[in-house]
């Protein structure tokens, strides 16, 4: 069975880009539009890896990561954060919250897939 990746991003464009890149690489892709939604999809879909954006309505990426890390059931799931290179501060905050790694936007599909394989057991 192929690995399930949950992507959390409020931008439809970004979600479609992620889906295209990940589905091409053979992953099963499930998507959510913000952190709160992400938590719900997480319960239903049990992904092996999560890729999340930071700036989102309702619950941002930091809040989402903290929630996942605070939950016994999901704390071991690797979380990759989508960030811009210029934003060292956000990257650090995401790490403090418990992000496993980060992907720099605009991302290169191959690097994205590599990054996921890097953290996936």
């Amino acid at each position: 069975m192929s690995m399930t990746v949950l992507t959390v991003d409020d931008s439809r464009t970004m979600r479609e880009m992620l889906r295209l890149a990940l589905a091409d690489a053979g992953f099963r892709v499930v998507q959510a539009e913000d952190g709160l939604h992400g938590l719900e999809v997480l319960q239903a879909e049990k992904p092996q890896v999560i890729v999340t954006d930071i700036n989102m309505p309702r619950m941002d990426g930091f809040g989402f990561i903290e929630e996942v890390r605070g939950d016994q059931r999901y704390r071991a799931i690797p979380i990759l954060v989508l960030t811009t290179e210029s934003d060292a501060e956000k990257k650090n905050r995401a790490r403090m919250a418990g992000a496993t790694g980060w992907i720099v936007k605009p991302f290169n599909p191959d690097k994205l897939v590599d990054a996921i394989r890097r953290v996936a057991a």
Partner: protein
Amino acid sequence: MDPLAAIRETFFQECEEQLAELESGLLAMEGGDQDPETINAVFRAVHSIKGGAGAFQLEALIRFAHVFETALDEMRSGRVPITPDVLKTMLRAADVLADLVRAAHDGSETEHPLASGLVDELKAMSGQAADEDEAEEDWGDFEFQPMAAAVDMPEAPAGPAGFVVKFKPRGDLYAKANEAALLLRELARLGQTVVELDAHEVPPLTEIDPEAAYLAWTITISGDTDEIAIREVFEWVDGDCELEITKQGPADGGFDMASLLARVQDEAPAEDEGPAVVPANAGEVDVASLIANLSPAAAPEPEPAPAIAPPTLSVVASAPAPAAPDAAPEAQAAGGPRKSEAGATIRVDLDRVDRLIDLVGELVINQAVLAQRVMEAGLARASAVAMGLDELEQLTREIQDSVMAIRAQPVKSVFQRMPRLVREVAAMTGKPVRLVTEGEGTEVDKTVIERLADPLTHMIRNAIDHGLESPEKRAAAGKPAEGVVKLAAFHRSGRIVIEVSDDGGGINRERVKGIAIEKGLVAAEATLSDEEIDNLIFMPGFSTAAEVSDISGRGVGMDVVRRSIQALGGRINIVSKPGKGSTFTMSLPLTLAVLDGMVVSAHGQTLVAPITAIVETLQPKAEDVHSLGGHARVISIRGGFVPLIDVGMALGYRRDPLEATQGVALLIEGEGGSRAALLVDAIQGQRQVVIKSLEANYRQVPGVAAATILGDGRVALILDIDTIVTVSRGDMRKAS
């Protein structure tokens, strides 16, 4: 479509949504909204546009969005105060951003005339250096900044070229779902590795803290790799582990810049990490530790070694684990309803929807035909067939309504374009204006919305340019300097009503009447009610060059607005109060697929006249009808004369006119307010009919707008009132 091109389209669609969000957020803030979520939403809109632009390498867009985003971020964090001036600049920046998005969409990405000025303003506002090179600053690599430091050069041990990596994870590394095993796997990709596990810190099982990390590894990598590649493997765990990389250089032990740099970096942030490097295998071995025996075991493959750590965690963690299954179903249930929201919208080709609407139209007709047949067969109304048919009818109507609703969209999409227009016209006229919108969520057919943009644009321009007085005049009249233009939408009796109102001076009736007389639109001696005078502005040819400025001008008068509204099956009128302002009211059908029609007959043919065009119906009296010679006639209605048009003759059904007293006259109002009376044999009734294009199925026929199929299965033509009136008037002119 190639998937990337499709995503590109999605991006531009999303940009439009975000631009709308941006603008409405800024406007809300201008109106005093202090909700932090509003400014967050504004920031996110620009941030998302920048992100997508980055993916598609739209450079001009990225550059502008970046400066804009930075300024918004400063505003969000309170470093730039939210003042009306700042918001005005932000709104102008939003307009430029919108232009840049559209230019990028068209592929005509060029410098925007206002962009560089705004960039400077935004930078000045947010303290960004005016001349900084953004490309360098933003996308450059910040990780490898040179810094001065005194470093002890490690002794390079003699031996084959390669690296020795000492790696000791901290608990944080595992807490972030990083995995030592995976890092070792990555390292193994770089070359031949020999992995040595140091488990001497592992305490007795009873003392193990599941959150802590006890294992350390020493990895010797040989082969063609460099330190940067090794550092990259550990990029995500930097700070969550102790890491020491030493080059096993060739025997000469030469100066290795990469390793120096790496050491500088490794040690620079070490202040808060306590003693930097704990050497593996140092000092005494804890004899009590059962696992200490493992220590000397060299592991050529990385897999066996880390196998110890994670399972330990899960075994010990099994105490709190039983809580999980209990929590799960509950949480699942709570998450249930939202799950469907994930797929709350789907994109469907418009053609498919229209095909469905078409089919449902057929179904409605078919159902009506069936109902009529059942009636004709003489079945009792209480019979099972008739009752089943009633249910079918109800169901059919529901299906029809639901299908029509698919095409319905909120008027928001067209209302959203207006704030910018208001800003532009306000700037051009020098009149401060506030736009108030209401009922943006009101839904109407997509095509109606699309065709509303032009008339609305024109009316709003007019409202500001002609409706509102100058600030001085307003002050003299005791009004606030800022004029208000209101745009409202609501549903009323199965139609959508859109109102454009202003709080200006109202229509100058004397002047309007004067112009109309001067232009020969009304007789000088005519007595007109206030309402009639107000509606003169809709007459073709009323628009006056002398009065029209280049804002509301553009060669379009209110007659064009009226015509476009009528083309949508709508009506428009104006109510004006001197000194208080004017309100234009448009009433439009919710859909263009069905029509409220009056079914009439002419010379045995069944025809449908759109109800919206009919002002009243009357039984002509012999003394009111006057012949003008030939077949041309006029009918006197309340003292005025209007042409009486025999529909049967106009469409060529008969050669000789119907005696007026034998028929019924429909007083209709065509485009530009011209009136005429259509003479038909009889009125059969009023009903909603499904419009079938005649052009698509046959060809265009003058005087016929479309066709429909009636309950008895017969085709009925829908009259094109305007053409009939225009053609008949031509005939009449010839006749007289």
